Every structure is written in C-alpha cells, then in structure tokens.
C-alpha cells in the first residue's frame, strides 16, 4: 500500500520507514517555510526598494535586537528538535529486536551473497519474511560496499575485515530494489539486486527448496539458473561480447592466452580452477578481478556451471 509516498520519497516498506519519512517531511515543511520567508522578504524588498534616485544616502539601520534574537533562537530550537528526532530513530535502527532472524550479507565485486541461518544461501536476491525483524550482519570480501534498500530506508556499509550490523522489518510483501551505494569500481551500478518479502510460509518453503536446489534438474539447465544466481552474469556474457570478463560463448574447447605468456586449452579442469582459484591463471586483456567461489559453490553446482559453459560452445 502506497500511503506515504510523496513527490520525494518512495513508498514505505518497513516499520522504520514512516518514522524516517515523518522527520524528512518535518524538515521539508519547516525548510519550505524558512525558504519562503527568505525569498518572499527578498522579493518584497527588492521590488519595494528598487533604485529610483541616482543620488543620496539611505537609511542607516543596522541592528534590531528582537529580530536578531529571533533568528538565532528559532533556528536553534528547530535544530535541536531535528537532532533529537533523528537520533531517536537512528538508535532504533541500530538496536536489533531480540527475536530477529539473522542473515549474513557479504558484498564483493559486484554481487551480494546472503547466508541464511539454515544453511541456505542466495546471490543478489534476499528473501525475507514479512512482519519479522531481519538482522543483517554485513561484511565485504574486497572493497567497501553499501547495502541500500530505498523502500526500507535502510543503508549500511559492508566493510572488509569487519562486521557491521543493521536490521529492518518489512511491512508488505513484494519485490524491492537493492542497490550498492558505496562506490566499488566498474560494476558498482550493476551491483543491484532484489529483496523479496514473502509470507512466513513462503519463506519456509523457499528455505526448504533452497537446500534441495537443483535436484532432479538436468545439469545444463541448472547451470543456466546458477549463471544468474551466482552472479556470473554481472561480468560474463553469453552472447559473445566481452565486457569485464571473457564471454562464455564459444569458450569451451578453445585455447586462451594467459598473462604469463602461455596458452591453455579450456577444458573442465581449467574451468573448475577458474572458478575456485581465478587468480591462478589470468586471461590476457582482463583484470584479475574475478572473486574466488571457493566455499560459495557446491560440487554439484560446479558441475552444472561447467556443463552450461560446455553447452555454449559452437
């Protein structure tokens, strides 16, 4: 339900959002009033006192104690209100309710990995139950990233070698945009995902399915899914165009040139190594930016990815 949306803010989707919006609107309205006072007074004066004579002196007034007290005191009161209001909500944003569901969020160039308590995990798609507080334990594997869901009014940096914490509670089901808001390089603007808020039941089902993912699906077909799910698609295309990384199209079976001057054939082992230990062999013309998927892909997933890449040879 889009009850709080305005010219400025997107519709609220979390418990904290209305509180943030209230302060935003308070500053907006007082700001508009202050702005009008300044501009209307200016406008009035410049019209009323526009230059008519070419000589002479003007009034010497340069003080007005009541005015000066007013324009010092009133803003002081206003900023104190704004400070305490903002602080109160901020503290709420930082103290996680006891019963919160804890999800570990890892940012790396240029995708998000989410680890759920029951051992499930997902990439670039955070699935959460509506109406239950969710605690995020963020960190990064390379540079600083920042987890931002506009509709939830939540943002927190993911800092390498440290944990940061934030939480939110979604108030309605739906899909919400997730952005990376700390500049992290070439793929910064592609480091976007979705937050899927679903009912508790659907969430439980999803966790179930997650642990059985790919069962009963042909490897190749599963690989197609993983290509998106594991975010290979942020860097590798399958249409033959090279972007950050070499395309998968027609890769298998060819030979590639490495930066160490050698040439290697692309076979199953090479692909496996490329995924698990990407820095070992770097293809010429590309930066060594591919993250290691060691610990992030299971054996069957690896097989599926290899099968998929294999299927892309001409």
């Amino acid at each position: 339900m889009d009850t709080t949306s305005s010219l400025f803010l997107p519709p609220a989707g979390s418990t904290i959002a209305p509180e943030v919006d209230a302060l935003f609107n308070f500053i907006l309205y007082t700001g508009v009033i202050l702005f009008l006072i300044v501009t209307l007074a200016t406008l009035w004066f410049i019209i009323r006192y526009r230059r008519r004579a070419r000589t002479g002196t003007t009034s010497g007034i340069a003080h007005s104690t009541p005015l000066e007290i007013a324009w010092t005191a009133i803003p002081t009161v206003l900023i104190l209100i704004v400070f305490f209001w903002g602080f109160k909500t901020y503290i709420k944003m930082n103290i996680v309710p006891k019963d919160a569901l804890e999800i570990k969020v890892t940012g790396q160039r240029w995708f998000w990995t989410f680890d759920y308590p029951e051992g499930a995990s997902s990439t670039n798609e955070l699935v959460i139950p509506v109406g239950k507080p969710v605690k995020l334990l963020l960190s990064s594997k390379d540079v600083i990233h920042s987890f931002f869901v506009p509709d939830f009014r939540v943002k927190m940096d993911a800092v390498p070698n440290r944990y940061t914490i934030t939480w939110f509670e979604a108030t309605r089901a739906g899909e919400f945009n997730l952005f990376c808001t700390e500049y992290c390089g070439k793929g910064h603007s592609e480091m976007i995902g979705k937050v899927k808020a679903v009912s508790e039941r659907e969430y439980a089902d999803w966790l179930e399915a997650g642990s059985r993912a790919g069962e009963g699906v042909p490897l190749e077909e599963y690989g197609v899914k993983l290509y998106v799910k594991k975010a290979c698609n942020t860097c590798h295309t399958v249409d033959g165009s090279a972007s950050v990384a070499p395309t998968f199209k027609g890769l298998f079976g060819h030979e590639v040139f490495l930066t160490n001057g050698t040439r290697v054939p692309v076979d199953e082992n090479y692909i496996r190594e490329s995924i698990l230990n990407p820095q070992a062999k770097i293809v010429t013309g590309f930066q060594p930016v591919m993250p290691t998927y060691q610990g992030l892909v299971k054996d069957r997933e690896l097989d599926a990815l290899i099968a998929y890449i294999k299927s892309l040879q001409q």
Partner: protein
Amino acid sequence: MASINYLNEPKGIKSWLLTLDHKRIGLLYLFGIMTAFFLGGVFAMLLRLELLSPGKDFFDADTYNQLFTLHGAVMIFLFIIPSIPAILGNFVLPLMIGAKDVAFPRLNLASWYIYVFGSLVALYSIITGAADTGWTFYTPYSTQTGTSVIAMTLGAFILGFSSIFTGLNFIVTIHKLRAPGMTWFNMPLFVWALYATAIIQVLATPVLGITLLLLIIERVAGIGIFDPAMGGDPVLFQHFFWFYSHPAVYIMILPGMGIISELIATFAHKRIFGYKAIAFSSLGIAFAGFLVWGHHMFVSGQSELAAMIFSFLTFFVGIPSGIKVFNWVATLYKGSISFEAPMLYALSFLILFTIGGLTGIFLGALSVDVHLHDTYFVVAHFHYVMMGGTVMAFLGGLHYWWPKMWGRMYNRLWARISVALIFVGFNMTFFTQFILGAKGMPRRYYNYLDQYQPLHGFSSVGSWVMAVGFVIMAVYLIHAIFRGRPAGSNPWGALTLEWTTPSPPLHENFPQTPKLTHGPYDYDTVTAPMT
C-alpha cells in the same frame, strides 16, 4: 586608458611570469583556475550526456568512473578551493585594506607556480589512466585499483601547499599591513571572510597532506594504516579525509559569503545589517566546521556514539549561516536596489544557498541521512552549495571587480541574460536530483533503472541550458577585456578602498597610502555616486 597601470607596465611575458605584484598574480590565477573550471565543466557535460538514458550511451563504465573522479577532483582541488581566495582575494585584499601588496609577494608567486605544477601532476594522471576512485579516494578501493591514483593524489598533495601559502600570506597581510585607520571593524566583510578562510586553510590543509601521503605510501608499501588487507582500518581513512574535506567546504563557501556581503551592500546602497554578526559568524563557521566531519560517515560503520556527536555538532553550523542569510536580507530593507549583473548573482546565491544549506539539515539528521547518504540527494545538496553558492558568488565577484581588473566594462545586457540562463539551467539540472536521490537513485552510477530516466533526462537538458549561459559569459567577458568601454574608477558607487584608486590600479595600488575617511558601508552618511 593610456595611463600607466599594473597591466601595461612593465611589459613582456617575462615580467608577468616573474611578477611579484599581487594583482598580476591574481590574473595568473584567473587564467589557470578558469581553465580548470572549463575542464571540470566539460567533464560534467560528458557525465550528464552519458546519464541521458540508462545503459551505455557514449562511454563504458570505466570511462564514466574516471570522468566523475576527474570532474570532482578538478572542480574541488583545481577550481573551487583556490578560486575566490587566489583570484579575487589576491587581487582585492591588499586594495581593500590599503596595502601595497600582500605580506610575502615571493611566496605568493611561488604558490601560483605550485598551483600550476600540482594541477599538471593531477592532470597528468589522465594520460596514465585517470584515477577512478571518486574525489574521496576511499580505501581500500584506492589502494587496489589499477588506475593512476598516485598521480592524482600527488597532484592534490602539491596543490595543498599552494593553498596553505595563500592562507598564510593572507593572515599575515591582514594582521600587519592594514592602512592607517583601518581597524579590524573598519575592514570590509570580504576581508573578514578571507581571514576566516585562511585560518581553515592553514589548519586543515596539512592534514590533507599527510592523509594523501599516507594513502600513497599505503598503496606502495602496504603500511597497514588504512588498508584492511594489511591490518588497517578503512574507516580511519575516512576520518582523515573528512577532517580536511569538511572544513574545506567552508574554505569554499566562506569567501563566497564575503563577496555576497560586498555585493549586497553596494547594490542595495545601504549600510550592511549586523556587521559584527556577519564578521564573527564567519569565524564561528570556521571553528564549528572543524567539529563535524563525521557527518559524512553515518553509515560507514563508525560508532553510534560518534555519529550522535557529529550529528549534534553539525547543526550548529546552520545557526551562523542563518545569521548571515537573514542579515543580508535585512540589508535590502530600505535600500536603493539596482539590478546589475553582480547583484543578480548575489540574489541567486541567496536563493540557491538557502536551498543548499537547508538540504544540509536533512543530511545532518541521523535517521534521514541513512536513507539519503550516497544518493543523488547528496549530489544535489553539494551542487546547490558549491555551484549555487560558491560559484554564483565567485561569478558575482568576478563581474563586480572585472572593471577594476581590466579598466573596462562588459556588456551588461548579455551579462543579465547569461545569469538568467545559468540560474534556470542550474535549477533544472540539480533540483531534479533532489527528487532522484530521495527516490533512491544512488550516486556514482554509470547505469540506472528505467524508472529514473525521465528525471535524469530532464537534468541533462538543464545542464545544456546552463552551458549556453556559460559560453555567453565567456564571450562577453573576454570581449570586454579588449573592446569594453572604459569603466571609470568607481562604476558601482561603492565605498570600499579598492574603488578609490584608478581602474586598472597602479603598480603599487595607491598613489599614496590611503587615509580612511569613512567605513566600508557608510551609505547612510557618505553620498556616493550611484549608477
């Protein structure tokens, strides 16, 4: 015009390049800094061009990232920080206080050479693969990226010395070289503003120096101060960076505010309202500005305690800023207001800075900043204060003192047309960005979701309107240098000392040491000619 003045005597390139005259050094700066502004503006137009629609329009992501880094770094380090102090400050400060020159003319010239050298080092990075870190150089990205971060940071490091020397020079000049009778409270407010600015320059810039040095060493040797992979703390880098860079925003705005005080008093032809309040609020802003840097880091992972303290202190900068704004408005009351181009810039400043400053209050409020941080709302905020504030004031000052600098007047009609275009274009470009940002559009995004396209498109169109305004301005200003009609020594009917000497001024400014007969804003007692 045939008379001997600082422009035509002595002659020759060498006499310019080795000049110790503060006015000539001001013009040398004008040349360098305008080039930088132009470059930064070109980068900006390219940015807006790419953002016209989502996906790839003209450049790839790497180029875009280098472009906004170059745009930000050039605009900040090469343009806006030196702009007002180094050009206008150098030119008019000694004139305003009735001195023959600044205290250390050699140092002044040296700082120009340092400026040029630093700028060249920074721009050299374009050739070697321009840095793509953003102007904030956050670690660990800046220690890892393959682009030439070192050239850019080294450039900024060198430019810091130029800024320090200018500040040092001004403080000493103001303390020691005032003309007889020029007491502290007889000084024009622009001088007060430059004084407050200079204090920040000498206090904060050394920290930028050590920060960039540490960053360079971190990149080379992995010393483990800022790089988490080496046991360092990236958030600490942010503290170091903003300890300089927040005060730096007041290095940008304070001299602008000083100019506005001059413009409003002159063109309202009225005694400035609350002289002392304006003078001391400059110092208040300068001081308080040192205590708030953490408001750039509310979601960086700094402690909640620090966030609270920084948010609290942040708001207190709003009070002296407000005092200034209200005093300027009050000055208009019962004035005799003329609408020359400089005054139009001053009025634009009043409107745009108020918007920019008030949106700073959104950002200073903890909970709201969590939502707005690193979105286009921040981009809009800082363009309103920097472009709408400082640049408007700078252009106003440039138009105000242009006849003094060159002895010739520009075309006043075209000047009004161009300020109108810039004002309209500016608001089209950046007001939209408040909406974009509040809706969640993150900054430093090469690509964006379709839902943001209409606003981005509108913003880009606005930037073209603004660019047209700037091109017109460049044309008539340059035209005025060669073809303008003689301006006379006091074209605006102002009372400060610089208008008592011929335009352009003599080599040592005044025929004899000026004697103060009235204060800078005695429009109620002194009958000055109006235009």
